[in-house]
Every structure is written in structure tokens, then in C-alpha cells.
């Protein structure tokens, strides 16, 4: 395949990555990295550089719409970003001391295990009986969003703020250590511990992953691992896919969003396991 044809293929994959990434709040990195390493035989650092660009593009492209449509909870996003960026900083310093293979395996196992409680709530359109915890009250984290499917404003409260914040710190550590967005942990923290409506969880995760990725983007960018011929078609494709995904999410019921999220979560979990075991 000539380089120009490869650029066209990467552009197409970017559209798909942006679509899936914006709907699930996971970013599109999980699709981009194996395509570039296994598909095109490129160095992992070039793939991660492109993946960081794809995460920022997914996040910014979709968040413009999610924030305007009030799906994103900005206060929860800002609070949890403190956890991820602080974790990312610790992770970047720890990276020389810890074996990345074992960490990828650990991360993969965590994702696969957490698919179980998420799958159990498959039929739950909205969480019920959730009462603000102390932190949510103090920090005014509760919110509401206009649900176009139900046709009314859905108000929600928030619990498990300390647990969610701690998990966010570890999501940041994983991001810094492994050069991944760890969006899955963000969605899971909000869905499982804080019990937000599914669409609010994915939209708020989507809002945050751009900041997590931007925290480590500088290193890859100035070092030259963000290669123009690869990163440009990724960015442009992902921006198109993410804008389309953002139009879809507001029209989907929470149940559908979860139905899309679970197989993608399992797929990312398997990919991380394989990367840890040196297969991919």
C-alpha cells in the first residue's frame, strides 16, 4: 500500500474511532493504536502520539455539543480532572520504576471485571433513589439535563464522591504510566460509584479525557512522536466522527448508550491484556 493510500485508510479509521469514542466517553485511542502498530507496523510511540491526538480531537469535537446540550456536568468534570491530572503527574514519574507489561495486564483485568456490574444495570434507564452525599452537597455537584428521549428535564443527585475521586486519581496514574486515556475508568467511576445517568457519565468522561491527554501531549509533540502524515488524517477523521457521535448521543436512550459501551469496554480490556502479554 502506498503512503497516500495508507493516509486515506487512517482517515477512515479516524471517523470510526471518533464516532465510538464520543458515544462511549472512552476516546478513540483503543482503535487507533492497534491499527498503527499491528496494521501498519509503526513504532508504538508514534501510535501513542497519534492516539493522544485522537483523544483530544474526540473530546473537544464532541464536548462542544455535549456542553451546549447540558449533558456534561462541568462541576463534576472539573473536580475529577484534579484527580486525573494529579494522578497523571505521579504516573509520569513512576513510569521508570514499574513494569508496563504487568500494568497493562492489571488494567485489562480491572476493565473486564468492571464490565460485570455495568452489565447488570443493562435495563436501567435512570438510576433511582440516589441521594447526594456530603461532598456532593458542599460542592453542589447535583445537576439536570434535558432528555430528548424522555422529553423532559432529568434531575439527578450524586453519591460516592470520595470513591469516584480516588478512582479518578488511579485512572490518571494509569494514563501517565501507560500513555493511554483510561477513559474506561472515568466512565466506570461515574457510573458505578457516583451513579450518574449513563449519558451524563459518558459525556462528562468525554469532557475530561481531552484534559488528561493534553497533560501528556506536550512530551510526545515536542519529541516528534506526533508525526504529521499520521496524526493529521487521524485528527481530521476523528473530528468528523465525533461531531456525528455527538448528534447521536442526545437522541439515544441511556440503555442504548450502555449497550454500546459494554462490548467496547470488553474489547478495550482484551486489547490491554494482549498488550501486557506482548501479543499486540
Amino acid at each position, binding site marked *: *500500500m*502506498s*503512503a*497516500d493510500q*495508507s*493516509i486515506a485508510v487512517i482517515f477512515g479509521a479516524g471517523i470510526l474511532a471518533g464516532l465510538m469514542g464520543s458515544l462511549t466517553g472512552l476516546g478513540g485511542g483503543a482503535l487507533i493504536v492497534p491499527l498503527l502498530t499491528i496494521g*501498519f*507496523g*509503526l513504532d508504538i510511540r*508514534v501510535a501513542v502520539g497519534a492516539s493522544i*491526538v485522537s483523544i*483530544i480531537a474526540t473530546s*473537544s*469535537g464532541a*464536548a*462542544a*455539543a455535549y*456542553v*451546549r446540550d447540558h449533558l*456534561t456536568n*462541568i*462541576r463534576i468534570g*472539573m*473536580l475529577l480532572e*484534579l484527580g486525573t*491530572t*494529579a494522578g*497523571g*503527574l505521579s504516573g509520569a514519574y513512576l513510569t521508570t520504576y514499574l513494569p508496563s507489561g504487568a500494568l497493562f495486564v492489571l488494567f485489562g483485568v480491572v476493565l473486564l471485571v468492571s464490565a460485570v456490574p455495568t452489565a447488570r444495570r443493562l435495563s436501567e434507564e435512570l438510576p433511582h433513589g440516589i*441521594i*447526594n452525599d456530603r461532598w456532593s452537597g458542599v*460542592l*453542589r455537584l*447535583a*445537576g*439536570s439535563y434535558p432528555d430528548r428521549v424522555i422529553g423532559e*428535564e432529568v434531575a*439527578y*443527585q450524586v453519591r460516592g464522591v470520595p470513591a469516584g475521586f480516588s478512582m479518578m486519581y488511579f485512572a490518571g496514574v494509569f494514563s501517565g504510566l501507560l500513555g493511554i486515556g483510561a477513559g474506561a475508568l472515568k466512565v466506570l467511576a461515574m457510573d458505578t460509584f457516583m451513579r450518574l445517568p449513563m449519558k451524563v457519565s459518558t459525556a462528562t468522561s468525554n469532557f475530561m479525557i*481531552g*484534559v488528561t*491527554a*493534553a*497533560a501528556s501531549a*506536550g*512530551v510526545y*509533540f*515536542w*519529541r*516528534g512522536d506526533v*508525526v*504529521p*502524515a*499520521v*496524526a*493529521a*488524517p487521524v*485528527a*481530521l477523521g476523528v*473530528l468528523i466522527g465525533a461531531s456525528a457521535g455527538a448528534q447521536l448521543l442526545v437522541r439515544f436512550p441511556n440503555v442504548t448508550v450502555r449497550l454500546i459501551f459494554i462490548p467496547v469496554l470488553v474489547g478495550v480490556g482484551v486489547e490491554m491484556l494482549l498488550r501486557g502479554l506482548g501479543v499486540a
Partner: protein
Amino acid sequence: MKDASPTPIRYGGRPMELWISRVLLFGVLLSTAITLAGLALFLAKGGGSGQSLSGLVDQQRMAANFGSILHGVARADGKSLIRLGLLALILTPIARVAMSLFLFLREGDRVFVLITAAVLCILLGGLIASALT
């Protein structure tokens, strides 16, 4: 404690959401325009004809700094224009955090001013430190 009535946060017409959304949209559009122009220029000047993607990657994989990017842009070099567009993309979430800080300041929300300022410091510190080393 029985607090069954949730209090949705309203920012009096919600300018918070509107401004953050505008910053993100501006960053995305600016970055798209520059990156697209760069890619078009790169392809128009022959692109990667006659070689494989990995060959092209080896050729383009070099450390960048702001000066080298601007010099390249002045020479109408497609690669440099793409780098400039991607830099605008990377700066977009950071600009969004800066805008949030301004909005929380204006609302006098001290706790969130501190939270947002801490995030912004970590982000800017990381970007500047990586540019200098």
C-alpha cells in the same frame, strides 16, 4: 437527612456552558482549518508518492520546536502547517480550563477557582517543561 429535592445548578441563563462550548468549537474549527490546509498542501506537493507509510514516518519523525514550526510555515511547508494545526488542537482543552477558571472567578466560587487553577497549573507546567527539555 432528607433532601429529596435536587437543586439543579443554573448559571442564570447558563453562560458557563455557552462560553465553554464556544471555546471548544473555536479551537476545533481553527485546528481543523490549519491541519486541513497543511494536509492538502502536503499532498499537492507530491505527498508520500513512491514510498511506504513507515518510510514517510521515518522521514517526518523529528523533534519540533515552536521556531522550527513557524519557519516551516513561512516556507509553505505542509508538514509544519499540520504541526501548527495539531498544536492548536492540543491547546484547546487547556484554553477550555482557562476559560472555566475565569468563569468560576467571576462567580466568586472559591473552591472551584482553586480546583481549576490547580488543574491549569499542572497542564501548563507539563506543556512548558516538555517544550524546554
